[in-house]
Each structure stands twice: as C-alpha cells, then as structure tokens.
C-alpha cells in the first residue's frame, strides 16, 4: 500500500515522516510495545527497498534529509528494544554497569555519523520543494518555478470552507473526543490531524492530506453526540436514586422523574434533529461542489448566457485536433509547460516542455524566448528546432487563464537563469503596474508573446461600444495595434481566438541586406574623359553647326573664331 502511494505522488514523504513520528511519540508516552516494534521495523525495511524500485525516487530514501527521520527512528527503536531485552535478563546492578558504557558510546557514534555524513554532503539537505513548506518565503525568491504553480499558494479561508463545509467546526470536537479516550491508534490520528492542519494551511494542494482525517474526526464527533442523545435509557444512578426515595414521597418523586425525562427527551430530539439538518445541508453542499467545481473537464469550457442556457467553448480540442491533422508527425511544438500534457495527449506531437519537466533551465529558455523580441526569440527557436508555437489568448472571450496573465511568471522564471537578458522591471510600466495598453512598457510591446497574442487583434472590434483592439480579459485597449511578424506566420486561430498557433518560417534563401546598394559617384570620370578626347585627331569637340542666314550670338562667335 505504501509503495502504491510512493509510485503515485510525491506526498508519500508526509507518510514516511508521520509514521516514524507516531512511533517516536509512542516511545515518549511509554506506550511502546513489541507489536509496535515488529510493525514498524518490518514496514521500514520492506518499504525502503520497495520504494527504491520507483525510478523517480531512486536512492533518495537514504540520501536526502527528508527520509532521515524514518531511518533515525528505526535505529532508535532497535536500540531501545535491545535494551529492553537486556533489562529482562540482567539485574539492576549489572544493568547499571553496562548501561552507561554502552548507551553513551552508541548514541555518540550515531550522532557523529549523521553529522559527518551531512557535512560531507553525502546526505543531501532538504530539497527545495519540501524546504518551502517550512520557510514559505523561500520559493518566491530562489525557485520561481515552484512559486508560480497556483496550487502552491497558501490556502484561503474560503477554500477551507468550500472543501470542508460544516466539518471545519466538528473536526476540533472530534479531536477532543479522541484525546479524551487515548490509545495507541488514537495518538496516530491526533498527530496526523495536527500536522495535516499545518501543511494544509501552507499550500492549497495539501488540502488533499487534510480531508481524510477531517472526515474521520468529524465522524467521531457526530457519532459520539448521536450515541449520547439518541439513547432512550436514563442514566442508571438516577434510577437507583429514584427507586430508593420512591417509598418516601410517592407523588412528589414521580413528578420529579417525569419532569426530568420530559426535559431530557425534548433536548435530545432537538439536538438530534439539528445535527441531522446540518448533515443534510453538508450533503447538498458536497454534491453541488463536486458537480460544479470538481467534475467539469477543464479542456472544454462552459459559460452561461443571460437566460441560463449553456454556451460550450471547445477551442482547446479544436486547436489540438487541427495540430494532429495538419502538421507532420515529427513537428515540434513550443508552448508554455501547462499545455504540454494536453498537446502530447490530444495532438500527439512532440513538445519542448510539459508538466513533468524538472529541468528548470529548459523551461527558463522557453520563457526567455517568449519574453524577448522577435529576432532573439527566432534565434532560440532555430536553436531548439521548433516548428510551431502555441499560445493561449483569452482577450476575445475574457478567459482569465491565458498566457498574457501568466507572462510575468514566465519572465521571473527566465530571469532566474538569464538575469542579464531578461528583467522583470523592464516589462512593468514606470509606476510598477503590468499594463497592456498605451502606457505599457516598450519591452512588453515588442516581445514575442505580446505580438503573437495580439496579431491582427487591432482590427477586431468585438462590440459596438468598445474600440477595436479591446482586450476583454484585461479590460484595456491594447497599446500596439499594428503588429508585424517577420519570422512567424499565423497558422491557426481557434473559433474564439482562444488558442493561436504560429508556424516558424525557415530562414530566407537570400538574406536581405540591411544596407542600401552601393552608390558610386560619377563626377571624377567625366574629368578624366575630357582630357583624352581633346588630344584626339580628327575630332572637333563642340563643333558648331553653321546654319546659313542665321547670325551667331556672341558666345558662339567667340568659340567659332577659336
């Protein structure tokens, strides 16, 4: 079971740390028994070697700090059990002589080993994606690609309520019930609950780890309450007390008994009905949430018109199928990594980066291509041998998850690798805002992403009320409406311009020269020629033609006499 978890999700690190923590706490609470020892040792050894079979995990379980807690507890448990065994065999005096020598030596040796291995780097320190759980500001500064994923942001109160509804309130009650009747297994539940609450608060994605324990503890709370309030038998002491005093004052006692039972059953039914109502509302809420938020495929978008009818936007699939049918089998598509899996799955084409790419530099290169001007981007695209570029543009329908909205993250990730070429401040207006209208920064108006998004958009008028080139997502009229592309040509835009595909043109056969053709001056040549002709025999330069009867004017008479 543990190995299935390891092969499915990196969150197995939570389990591999929670279980040793549980064992350690049991040790501290003196609840450690042989069953726990057997269970944990077997689990650790077999789990360790099985988890190393998963290629992605590899040798991490013995090299990284995240797994060191499990190993440490394992060694500790061995030592402790061995000591227990000895304790059963030896008398007190003998134990004391051995104890101080052996235990101190062992603890010192272990400590020195771990410190030495950590210092020499054989055991790697906490890797970035787990370190950012403790130091939440770390990723934004050092690893922007982890900070850019929207699921890694801290959780809001709204999403807590959205996912858990009434269980947010009943979960602490269940926790208290668990602590009141403590046992070995309940210690685990308590630890799990506390740690899961912390992690779910740090990152939205880790709500996944919180929900099972919330459901369990709320169920405990509800069942405890129902058990108490639905049972019809009055408590035993009251019965005995009443029957004892029954003989003294018959009438009065009976009235007392009646009063108590009456109050009890009213309260009981009220509370039970109230809790049932809460549960009903919870069920309704959950069904609604699942159908609306967690069931819709994010590839097909649905919007609702004024009269409530549904309008389906199938642009993504349209574009991917266009790619599948109209491009060669070995064409390479450049896009942002969010669409990598979709392109590979639906269009069946090679992509440069997709959701599983862990090579930050490669993603940064794609980001740099999107953020540079067309010539620099063209060089990068020739280097990576790209045939088509795919972007998502939401300006026509007001789709908020398009590439221009993600653009700043692309810039930040590229800046991490190429800080001299790409700077985030270049793309912001002088006031520090990210704008696409006339006040946008010139670097933004010139970059490839801008040009590809707004190519021919300046001529498009969506509504008679708004000017042409009005971006519905950003609610602004775009700054540069006359977009010319030199190295790309538009291959496909889907029905609502949601997905736009451009083809990268081959370099020209004869590269156009930037210079003007050479102009030679002819002034010197004339002078040269004049000298030569004057000396030639048989030719008179500027020979005058004499017309009979016509008087020569002064100039011609002078030259004629000469």
């Amino acid at each position, binding site marked *: 079971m543990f190995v299935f978890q390891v092969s499915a999700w990196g969150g197995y690190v939570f389990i591999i740390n929670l279980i040793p923590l549980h064992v350690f706490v049991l040790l501290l609470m003196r609840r450690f028994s*042989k*069953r726990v020892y057997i269970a944990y040792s077997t689990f650790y050894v*077999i789990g360790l070697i*099985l988890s*190393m079979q998963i290629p992605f995990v590899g*040798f991490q379980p*013995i090299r990284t700090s995240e797994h060191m807690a499990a190993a440490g507890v394992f060694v500790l448990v061995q030592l402790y059990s061995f000591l227990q065994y000895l304790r059963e065999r030896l008398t007190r005096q003998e134990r004391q002589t*051995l104890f101080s020598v052996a235990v101190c030596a062992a603890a010192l040796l272990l400590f020195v080993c771990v410190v030495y291995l950590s210092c020499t780097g054989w055991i790697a320190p906490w890797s970035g994606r787990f370190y950012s759980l403790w130091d939440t500001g770390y990723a934004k500064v050092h690893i922007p690609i982890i900070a850019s994923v929207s699921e890694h942001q801290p959780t809001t109160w709204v999403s807590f309520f959205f996912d858990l509804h009434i269980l947010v309130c009943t979960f602490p009650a269940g926790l208290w019930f668990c602590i009141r009747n403590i046992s070995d297994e309940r210690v685990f539940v308590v630890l799990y609950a506390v740690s899961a609450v912390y992690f779910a608060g740090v990152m939205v994605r880790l709500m996944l780890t919180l929900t099972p324990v919330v459901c369990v503890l709320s169920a405990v709370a509800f069942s405890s309450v129902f058990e108490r309030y639905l049972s019809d038998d009055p408590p035993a002491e009251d019965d005995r007390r009443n029957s004892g005093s029954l003989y003294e004052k018959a009438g009065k006692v009976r009235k007392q008994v009646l009063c108590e039972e009456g109050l009890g059953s009213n309260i009981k039914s009220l509370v039970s009905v109230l809790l049932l109502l809460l549960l009903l509302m919870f069920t309704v809420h959950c069904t609604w949430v699942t159908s609306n938020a967690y069931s819709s495929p994010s590839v097909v978008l649905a919007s609702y018109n004024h009269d409530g009818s549904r309008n389906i936007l199938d642009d993504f699939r349209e574009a991917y199928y266009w790619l599948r049918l109209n491009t060669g089998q070995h064409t390479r598509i450049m896009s942002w990594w969010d669409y990598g899996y979709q392109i590979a799955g639906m269009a069946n084409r090679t992509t440069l980066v997709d959701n599983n790419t862990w090579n930050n530099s490669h993603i940064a290169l794609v980001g740099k291509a999107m953020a540079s001007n067309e010539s620099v981007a063209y060089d990068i695209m020739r280097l990576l041998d790209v045939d088509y570029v795919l972007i998502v543009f939401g300006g026509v329908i007001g789709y908020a998850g398009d590439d221009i909205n993600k653009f700043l993250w692309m810039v930040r990730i590229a800046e991490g690798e190429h800080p001299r070429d790409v700077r985030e401040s270049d793309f912001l207006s002088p006031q520090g805002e990210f704008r696409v209208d006339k006040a946008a920064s010139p670097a933004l108006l010139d970059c490839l992403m801008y040009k590809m998004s707004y190519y021919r958009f300046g001529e498009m008028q969506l509504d008679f009320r708004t000017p042409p080139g009005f971006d519905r997502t950003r609610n602004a009229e775009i700054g540069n409406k006359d977009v010319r592309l030199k190295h790309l040509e538009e291959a496909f835009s889907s029905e609502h311009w949601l997905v736009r595909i451009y083809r990268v043109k081959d370099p020209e056969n004869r590269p156009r020269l930037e210079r003007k053709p050479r102009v030679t001056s002819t002034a010197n040549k004339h002078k040269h020629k004049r000298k030569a002709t004057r000396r030639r025999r048989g030719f008179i330069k500027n020979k005058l033609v004499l017309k009979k009867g016509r008087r020569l004017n002064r100039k011609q008479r002078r030259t004629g006499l000469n």
Partner: protein
Amino acid sequence: MSNSVISVISRFLEEYASSTPNKLKVVDAYLLYIMMTGALQFLYCLLVGTFPFNSFLSGFISCVGSFILAVCLRIQINPQNKGEFLSISPERAFADFLFAHTVLHLVVINFIG
C-alpha cells in the same frame, strides 16, 4: 569497572545458555550469521567502493531485512511474550515470516541489477 563488565557479560552468557529454549537458540544462531554477513558486506563496500551502488544496497538491505524479520519471528514465538500475541500462533508467525521473506527476496533480486 572493566572487571565487572566482563563478569556481567559472562554471567549473562551463562544464563542465556541455560534458560532459553532450543528453538530460540536456533533463531539466535541464524541472527548472528546474518549480522556477520551484513558486516562483511559493509566492510567490502568501504574497502572497494560503491560502484554498482544498487547492488550493494540490495545486498545490504537484504541482510538487514532478514535480520529484522528473524527478530520479529523470535519475538512472536517466544513463550514469554504469549500475553501480547494472543491471536498469533507460532505457526502463523512462521508463515508471516516466510511470506515477508518472499517479498523481500523478490525485490532484492529485482534491485540487484
């Protein structure tokens, strides 16, 4: 101090030889053998280097795993611990031991490269 330590150890060995049943002594001999093998493997790794790292790891972990499983078996069949393991008979413990060993060795063979 060292005198008393030696005397303690000798007394412990004496008591061990006399009071443990034969079944447990067999398991203890097996444990000792496994520990020697594991120590030898580790020594070899320190001397020669960790080139085929997965082979070293799989061999070492198979030693550690066998040791742990044998210890678990010993705990479960020890008649002194009967109170804690009411539902697990010695035959069941041995069957569990065999099953876990099968899984362990399958994985070790896969991992050894």
